[in-house]
Each structure stands twice: as C-alpha cells, then as structure tokens.
C-alpha cells in the first residue's frame, strides 16, 4: 500500500490529524516530542487505500535526535504524498521545514493549523497567498475542532492524481525554481514568504496568554508551579482514596468476593484448590482487592491529572523553571518531562527519552526512573499501604524518594561518559485541553494499562495464591529469614513481596497490605519496594533501547540498594 507521510515541526498537531483521518488514537500533548516513534494507520483517499504515517515532529531533517532521524528515514524511503502541517502562529520557522521538504520531490499539501491561536496573537495568514507562494495546495484548519478536514481529503486526492511533469508546482517536481535545484537560502525565502502572506493585527492576549507569561516569570512562576504539582498530587491521592475506600473496596468486600466465595464453596470440596481460588490469598480475592480496589483508582486519577498537565503546556514550563536545579544534578530541565512521565509508567518514559539529544541523558534518566520514581500502579499500592498506618509516612517516603533520586542521578552522571546537552526547548502557548482528545487520551491510556498489565498482574496473583495457599511460601520464608526478618526486620511472609516484585512493581507492595506490620516495618517495606527491581516490561525496554549490560546493571543495582538501604533504615531505627 502506498504511503502518505504526516510531517511538521513538533507540537503543531500532526497526531490530531492522524487520529481524525485514521480513527486510530495517537497521543497528542502540548509540548515538543510527544510522538517519538512513528504510528501508522490506513485511510481512504478518493476510493484508494493509503497508509498514513504520523512521523515524529522535527524542526529540520538533519536528525539531531533519534526522533528526528525517523523523519529523515521515511522521506528517503519515498512516499506517494506528504501532508505538511504548519503552525500558523509561528509560520516563518515552520516554512523552513516546508521548504527543506521540497528536495525530496514528493507531492505535498500544506495544512495551516492552529489558525485560532494565531488569531489570538494577532496574526492573520492568507491561505490563498501562501498557496501561491508555495505553488501547492494550502488548507486552513483548526484540527482539534475538526475544521477543514474534508478539504484536506479533497486536496490530497487532487495532488495524488496530478500529472507529474513540468507542472510549475514546485513541490511536485524536482526542477522548478524553488524545488530540487534549490540553492537559495531557505531561511531567507521563509522570511520573505511569511512577510508576504501574514498580516499583523493587534494581539489580543486572553487570560490564558497572560497566565502563560506569568507562569514563566521566576516569581510567581515557581510558586505557581509548586502549587500545581502539590495540588495535582493531592487530587490524585484524595480522589483515588475516595474511590478506593468509598466505592471500590466496599463493593469488592461486600459483593464480589462473597459472590465468588458462595459459588466456589458450593461447587468445590474444601482443600488447597479451593483455597487457591478463594482463600485468604485466593486468586478471586486478591485480584479484586489489589488490582481493582488498591491500584486501579490511582492509575485512573493519575492519567486524568497528568493528561491535563500535558495538554495545557505545563510540562515544558516546569522544565524551564527547574532547569537550574537539574543542571546541578548534571542533567537539564527537559529531562523533567520524562521523569514526570515515569510516574505513570517507566516504559513510555524511557521511550520518550528518544527525543533527548544525548545518550548519556537517556541513560541517567532511565536509571533515575527505575530507582527512585515509582510507577503509578506502584504508587497506588504504596498509598494504600501507607494509609493503613500513619500519614507522616507520606511526606517521609516522598523525602526518601527525593534523596534517592538526587543520589542516583549524581552517581549515574559520574559513571556514564559523555555530555548532557544544555536546555533548548520551545515553550508552547498555554492552552486548555480539547475535551474530546483529552477524554480519548485518558481512555486510550487506561485501555493500554489494563491490556499491558493484565497478564503479568494475573500471573503474579496466581503465583501468590499458589505459593501462599500450598504452604510453599512457609518453606521459602525459612530460607529468606536472614534477609527478610533479621536484616530488613519484616515478617517472614513478606518474602512474597520480593518474589512477586520481579514480575510487576506494584506487586512488591500489594502483599504487604494483608500483613500486620509495625510502622517501621511498613516504612521499610515501602522503601524497599520503591527501590526494588523495575518490572519485567521495563527490563525488556531497557534492553531494547540501550543494551543488556545496562538493563542488568540497573536491575542488580536496584535489588542490591533496596536490600542494603532498607536494612540500614531498619537497623538504625529499630
């Protein structure tokens, strides 16, 4: 099937087009580098099927990051057509890429997107004049509101069937005046076109523009940022807790578990098999108590809050505000975006670092995420655990994670050779999320979470049920006693957390929920699980993105530090 490429600067709305045209949801956010890998989907133009490829956003075709290299690769491989998306509020820079694209001699249509944002900034662009300058079709749209989509398809159909010879349409053949023989200065030409097609009226900054500027001032920006972060955590914890305690736990305890208990006890004789199904650690008990009640609500709340922060353009703003601190740690502010993603799941965070320009930065971020940043489902389990004991543990564990984060980043930065490129990031306009794409994003992420986590979680739970109900756990516990009880000071049965934690991160906490612990034991358990192994999926992604050596180093490092530091905390505090 023939390919059509969607190309443009980062953060101009390519993924929104992709979703509209193919019906496949591509993640979109308000910062550069949301798409670091390409996505493909099918769609029909004039009765024929094409493969549409959502190419990661790129400022140029010089491949300064792994994400940009993907764009260059696709263009070199050729395509039936290119849809080049331009940001109307920043036309000149976008035109540089548009002009650079021409040397590939692929028929192109241009989409002038974000015209609403441009208007608010007092910029009006004539699509007709631009079409004349570019000698190619230009469609003016507001993609998130679906304006102009039909016209895109019509024009696309036209250029796909346009004759390919001596046409005067620069984008369509190699030898026109601005085309393949281009020796002229692209930047100068972009400026010239921009001056001819755009008109400045008075800017009419709305509340969002003013707030966006205000957030970038060191004062009050830092305070606004801190407030937003703390408020976000509070929202996740409060509503997650409300859903768990107020809704899901009562349903699980009063309806779901008794329901299955009734069925199984009626159908099966007493014994180990029945216990594996519905005993204290039975599959049908813990899968609902742990996954549905203790983990699900927090993951959902996290994606609701995080998606909002992503779509507004908050994340690049905190990268700028906290760049000075990140520099002292040997990183740069932009790394914060990946770290925030890591609170959701380490896998997309590590993949997201492809937008970073240096390998060292990628590895240091990956190490910090694996050691010190719990994924959301683990955080959910941790909150569930802590809330059983005492709320002082909440700030204590955050402080602990922070110290850990600083230490790991400094150590990893020392050992890994290379440089971290300084901050260079575009700060987008502050926007309100579009309700539809925001809703779809939450839905897609939850679906993805359930899909990805389902099998390993159930596997872990089955393993837990069998180990606990068959008595095998008691045998293992005896052997693990020197470490688990003597050194870490935890009850012997807690060894199950260390076993299950290999499969999934949250499973290194969940088994502790069922144990009677002292406050110190709960804290040590939480600290150990925080540092403990990243899950199997993370191991796989570390191996794929870097190499086995790094995946192994991070895994051994996490286990060793978890046991060592957990034990030290216990020995000092007991």
């Amino acid at each position, binding site marked *: 099937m023939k390919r059509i490429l969607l190309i443009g600067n980062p953060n101009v709305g390519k993924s929104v087009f992709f979703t509209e045209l193919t019906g496949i949801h591509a993640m979109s956010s308000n910062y550069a580098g949301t798409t670091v890998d390409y996505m493909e989907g099918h769609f029909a133009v004039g009765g024929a099927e094409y493969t549409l490829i959502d190419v990661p956003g790129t400022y140029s075709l010089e491949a300064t990051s792994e994400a940009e290299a993907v764009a260059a690769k696709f263009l070199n491989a050729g395509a039936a057509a290119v849809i080049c998306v331009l940001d109307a509020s920043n036309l000149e820079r976008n035109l540089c890429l548009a002009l650079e694209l021409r040397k590939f001699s692929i028929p192109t249509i241009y989409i002038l997107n974000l015209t609403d944002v441009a208007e608010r900034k007092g910029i009006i662009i004539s699509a007709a004049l631009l079409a004349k300058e570019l000698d190619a079709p230009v469609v003016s749209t507001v993609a998130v509101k679906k304006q102009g989509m039909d016209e895109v398809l019509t024009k696309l159909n036209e250029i796909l069937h346009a004759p390919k010879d001596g046409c005067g349409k620069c984008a369509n053949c190699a030898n026109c005046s601005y085309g393949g023989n281009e020796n002229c200065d692209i930047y100068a030409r972009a400026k010239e076109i921009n001056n001819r097609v755009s008109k400045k009226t008075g800017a009419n900054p709305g509340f969002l523009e003013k707030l966006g500027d205000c957030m970038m001032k060191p004062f009050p920006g830092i305070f606004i940022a801190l407030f937003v972060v703390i408020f976000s955590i509070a929202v996740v914890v409060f509503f997650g807790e409300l859903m768990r305690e107020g809704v899901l736990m009562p349903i699980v305890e009063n309806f779901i578990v008794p329901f299955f208990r009734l069925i199984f006890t009626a159908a099966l004789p007493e014994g180990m098999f029945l216990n594996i199904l519905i005993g204290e650690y039975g599959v049908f008990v813990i899968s609902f108590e742990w996954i549905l009640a203790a983990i699900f609500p927090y993951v959902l709340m996290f994606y609701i809050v995080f998606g909002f922060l992503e779509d507004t353009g908050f994340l690049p703003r905190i990268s700028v505000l906290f760049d000075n601190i990140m520099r002292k740690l040997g990183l740069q502010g932009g790394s914060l975006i990946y770290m925030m993603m890591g609170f959701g799941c380490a896998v997309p965070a590590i993949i997201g670092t492809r937008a970073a320009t240096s390998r060292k930065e990628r590895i240091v971020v990956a190490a910090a995420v694996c050691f010190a940043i719990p994924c959301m489902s683990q955080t959910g389990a941790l909150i569930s655990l802590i809330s059983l004991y005492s709320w002082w543990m909440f700030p204590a564990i955050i402080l602990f994670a922070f110290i850990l984060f600083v230490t790991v980043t400094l150590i990893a930065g020392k050992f890994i050779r290379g440089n971290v490129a300084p901050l260079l990031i*575009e700060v987008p306009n502050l926007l309100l999320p579009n309700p539809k794409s925001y809703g779809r994003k939450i839905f897609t992420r939850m679906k993805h979470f359930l899909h990805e986590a389902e099998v390993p979680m159930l596997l872990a739970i089955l393993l837990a049920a069998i180990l606990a109900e068959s008595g095998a756990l008691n045998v293992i516990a005896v052997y693990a006693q020197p470490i688990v009880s003597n050194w870490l000071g935890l009850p012997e049965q807690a060894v199950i957390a260390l076993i299950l934690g290999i499969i999934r991160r949250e499973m290194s906490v969940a088994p502790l929920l069922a144990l009677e612990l002292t406050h110190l034991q709960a804290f040590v358990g939480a600290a150990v699980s925080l540092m403990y192994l990243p899950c199997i999926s993370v191991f796989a992604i570390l191996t794929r993105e870097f190499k086995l050596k790094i995946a192994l180093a991070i895994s051994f490092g996490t286990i060793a530090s978890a046991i060592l530091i957990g034990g030290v905390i216990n020995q000092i505090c007991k």
Partner: protein
Amino acid sequence: MSNNLYSANKRTKLQVTSVPMNALLESIGIRSGTRVRVQNRYAFGGPVLLRVEDAFSVALGKEIATQIGVLEI
C-alpha cells in the same frame, strides 16, 4: 554594543550576531541575524527565556546562551 545573550538586558531588542555550532539551535530558528528579546532569566545558573522574532518562545540553557553573541538594536 556587542554582548553575549546570557548577560543581555531584559526586554531590549537584540539581534543575534554569532551562534555556536548546534544543528537544533539553527533549525529551531536561532541564527545569525535573528531578532530576539530576553523575556526572563532564571537565577542560580538557570536558562534564559527568549522571544524569537516576536513569534515564539524558546528557553536556552546557560551553556548555550553564553555562546551566543548579540547586538542591541
């Protein structure tokens, strides 16, 4: 007068006179001749926030900003 971007005055109109070799810097739109304005500067070695050609905002880390030469216009 000639200056480096990192120590340039806030709010004054500037023109870039020299840039270090950096492909991303060039493609993001900061080249010799580009008109910029420092919007904000962040303490303790933080970045500078630039308004570029009055069209978009870019934050530059100290290490890059000190290598960019500017002229007040």
